[in-house]
């Protein structure tokens, strides 16, 4: 087994993909749909924002292990943050997963588990799909964002 694959599918990623957290609809919140037309992944991200703070976040849909794990980790890490903070966190996740393979891994807590994606450029969009949907839901809601 190659180390690249072990880095991508490390325990936390497989665990979050098989047992996703916050995988449920959210009645109170806003929602946005994320769609990757190339692979057909479809996620809906729900978010409840009160006074600019994300009080709750969840998701539903179908996707690969990377998309589901990223969505699961994301919903856990953005709760309690302001929308602006969640946006900034998305930027850091993007840097984490698009950095050169040998660059140091920034400590983003549980989200650092996504670092293995950097060795698989074609999978970056899988990881960013839920984040794009979160951004759309927090901003306006009821949109479809695509990663085309």
């Amino acid at each position, binding site marked *: *087994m190659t180390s690249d*694959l072990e880095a991508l*599918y490390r325990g936390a990623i497989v665990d979050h993909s*098989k047992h996703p957290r916050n995988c449920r609809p959210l009645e109170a919140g806003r929602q946005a749909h994320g769609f990757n037309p*190339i*692979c057909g*992944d*479809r996620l809906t991200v729900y978010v409840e924002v009160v006074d600019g703070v994300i009080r709750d976040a969840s998701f539903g849909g179908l996707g690969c292990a*990377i998309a589901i794990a990223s969505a699961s980790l994301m919903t856990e890490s953005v709760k309690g943050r302001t929308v602006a903070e969640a946006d900034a966190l998305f930027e850091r996740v993007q840097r984490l997963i698009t950095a050169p393979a040998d660059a140091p891994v920034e400590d983003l807590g549980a989200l650092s588990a996504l670092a293995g994606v950097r060795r698989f450029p074609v*999978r970056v969009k899988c990881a960013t799909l839920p984040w794009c949907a979160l951004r759309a839901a927090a901003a306006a809601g009821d949109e479809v964002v695509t990663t085309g």
Partner: protein
Amino acid sequence: MAASDAAAIRRDFPLLRQLVHGKPLAYLDNASTTQKPHVVIDRLTQYYAEENANVHRGLHSLSDRATRAFEEARVTVGRFLNADPREVVFVRGTTEAINLVAATFGRSCVGPADEIVVSEMEHHSNIVPWQILCEQQGAQLRIIPITDAGELDLDAYAALLTDRTRLVAVTHVSNAMGTVNPITEIVRAAHGRGIPVLVDGAQAVAHGPVDVRALGCDFYAFSGHKLFGPTGIGALYGTSALLESMPPYQSGGDMIRSVSFEHTVYDIPPHRFEAGTPDIAGAVGLAAAIDYLSGIGFERIADHERELLEYATGALARIPGVRVIGTAAHKVGVLSFVLDDVHPHDVATILDREGVAIRAGHHCCQPLMERLGVPATARASLALYNNHDDIDALSTALQTARGLFG
């Protein structure tokens, strides 16, 4: 085919010699596109180095030579399909061939309340052109359902044919499941009501001989790049009677007899449908691919693939958690499958790191995926140069995938 013959054929394809992620390449994505033998690559080089000129217009020697090479390629394609060369229109590929028929035959013969019949297993390229035509003309699309095994429901098909049906457009072989459809039966039922039939041959041509006269179809479309030829070239077969009745597709140079500002006289088929400078090198490259395959023999190729499909089907059956999608009685070397809890994209990524190239996704068949109740599948598709080692690499990599998600 003897093992030594198979090894010799594999050596004809330079791309297959490379390593991917340090592993020998097992190229099992042939339904997407096929690799090219030396003779095709060399033919393209030779054309550009020695014969390049525009066709059908120059009076100089080089133009004559290019025109001959291009028209000889048409003869070769005609022979390959058992058609008259005048019934062979060069296009960019299957997609353009279908769009051509939709834009010409479709616009002139399909009117309000008319119907076009397609099947549930079609590639988007044999759905969307008809959908657009239906919207433009106020016509309706009718869908032949499939069975759980991935075969056409022929009773339902017969019931769909009415006095309003203007065309039946079906695939010869399903790109997502490998099902070979009973084209002669489909044609017989349609012709019984005077309805023409278009066959999408994109996935059929690489797997065995095609005889449009025996099939009885009115149109047959295929792409060169799925037949070990270059990208950007393909052919549309149409019966002389239909082609002669059809208005032009694109217009401009090379498709006319005479032009004045008052009146233009179009050329006869097939030139009427080939406006502008065609992909001359592509056509001669495609002919080289057909000559190469004829040299091996289509029956031998089909035999080799049949044996390999059996071997691969057995290998997949031994891997716990693998479910093959599409179990038609008559199929070619396309194996769509899902692996328990592992999403097809993850399967494809893991296989790629083991040197195994497959496709994962909806295969441009979203309505079919909907019918099968899966968002996507992984697909291994075979060609004449594949061997048991490729299938063994696939099996080993699938075990790795199971291990990572275990």
